[in-house]
């Protein structure tokens, strides 16, 4: 219990301290910035407050796209890892293709996705999907294949079929790696969703808000959207952590 309180308290304290310094102008002093370049927290909060319903709606749009895209992308990445595990020859090609996708910047992917999808949501999901594939594929592949010595022997000794080995050995064995991938993808999916919105048809979403306002010198508004995105990111990360703690409580990292 004490630990749980500490888990939340420490980062919170740190955050508050940082916000205080920022509010009191020290951050600006150090970075040599004017408040109209980087607004102070209170101003951001006030702006956010005034604009809350719209911010929440925009957040919903971006997050749902990010979440769906992350799930699809992770699923595809995972599937590629599975194929690479079962059919090493084929799958290796799959991993290479994923790598190739991973080298396409979001700013190029977004207009490409605009060609394929007409709604902003579909375009966003398309972009996020591609962005999230690699981390999952690489991590899952390593988790599916780095088995403890002799654990495979046990399976072979009872002539377990491939998919049984997969289900009962490889799959649980790769769970820690899957969580690692999710931690990367939480961040990747949200930022990808945001950037895809720069180029989307739709004028909803955090990304549109950020770009539109930062361009128009509405810094407080723009940053309030960044704040919302950050909070959402941290929130999803915490959810992932809680899941992790329950799903892989047997793993060394959880002790």
């Amino acid at each position, binding site marked *: 219990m004490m630990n749980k309180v500490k888990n939340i308290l420490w980062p919170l304290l740190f955050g508050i301290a940082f916000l205080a310094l920022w509010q009191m102008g020290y951050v600006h002093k150090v970075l040599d910035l004017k408040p109209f370049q980087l607004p102070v927290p209170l101003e951001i909060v006030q702006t956010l407050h005034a604009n809350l319903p719209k911010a929440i709606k925009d957040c919903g749009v971006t997050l749902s796209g990010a979440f769906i895209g992350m799930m699809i992308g992770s699923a595809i990445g995972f599937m590629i890892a599975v194929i690479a595990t079962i059919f090493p020859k084929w799958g290796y090609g799959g991993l290479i293709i994923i790598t190739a996708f991973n080298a*396409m910047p979001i700013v190029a992917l977004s207009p490409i996705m605009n060609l394929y999808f007409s709604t902003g949501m579909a375009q966003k999901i398309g972009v996020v999907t591609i962005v999230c594939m690699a981390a999952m594929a*690489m991590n899952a592949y390593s988790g599916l294949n780095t088995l403890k010595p002799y654990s495979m022997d046990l399976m072979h000794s009872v002539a377990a079929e491939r998919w049984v080995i997969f289900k009962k050995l490889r799959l649980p064995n790769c769970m820690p790696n899957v969580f690692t991938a999710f931690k990367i993808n939480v961040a990747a999916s949200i930022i990808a969703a945001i950037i895809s919105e720069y180029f989307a048809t739709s004028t909803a979403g955090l990304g549109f808000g950020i770009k539109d306002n*930062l361009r128009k010198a509405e810094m407080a508004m723009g940053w309030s959207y*960044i704040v919302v995105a*950050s909070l959402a990111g941290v929130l999803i990360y915490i959810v992932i952590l809680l899941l992790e703690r329950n799903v892989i409580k047997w793993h060394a990292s959880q002790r």
Partner: protein
Amino acid sequence: MAFILKYVVKSEMASVKLPFLHTIFITMFQNAGMLLEASAVTFSRALLGFAIGAVIGVVLAILMSLSKTLERIAFPYLIISQMIPVLGLAPIIFNIVRDMNLSRIIIAAYITFFPVSVNMLSGLKSVDQEKKELLYAIAASKFNVYRKLMLPYAMPYLFTGLKIAAPMAVTASILVDMLGSKSGIGVKMLYSLYSSSMDIFWASVITSAILGIVSYYLVINAEHFFLPWQSGKEGETA
């Protein structure tokens, strides 16, 4: 690919949505010089960004593994850091370093470090208790524990992270090309996209993909070089 083409052929904008492979390759061939030159700029910056990002990622992971408190404090903020788009970040970075070129490299590194850090940290946290106790029992210094155990143990995890980060470094480098650079694949991509030169656009996209694959192979080769025991063990566990 064939499937996509077939599907695309039916659509009116076929050649825009996904141009035929041969046209891309012809374009690439015709513009080979320009693309190579641009690739060199982008790739070298990617390498630099990757190197810096990887080092930062590893250092952050080590710091976070040293102290659980630090991890608790830092990790949420690392996530937050990744939520700040370049549009908002670039002016701040520039204000700190006061040099556009350096800003670009920093931004590339900033984008790259995260997967390295997460994977490395997960490796450092996966070290078996008994392996740690062996060193703890002889009061090995933290430095030695990391040098002799944690770091070698986390190497495979690190390389998984690097395999994710290497093509991302290309992405990042292309992105920072677009921050007012005058050459690089990103510049070609942007110019061609906005002037509807779709052939060149696709050629640059394919080039960036190739750069990603090259970077991936570089990491794989480094892995085989640095982790020979890894390949030995595979034979056993496979």
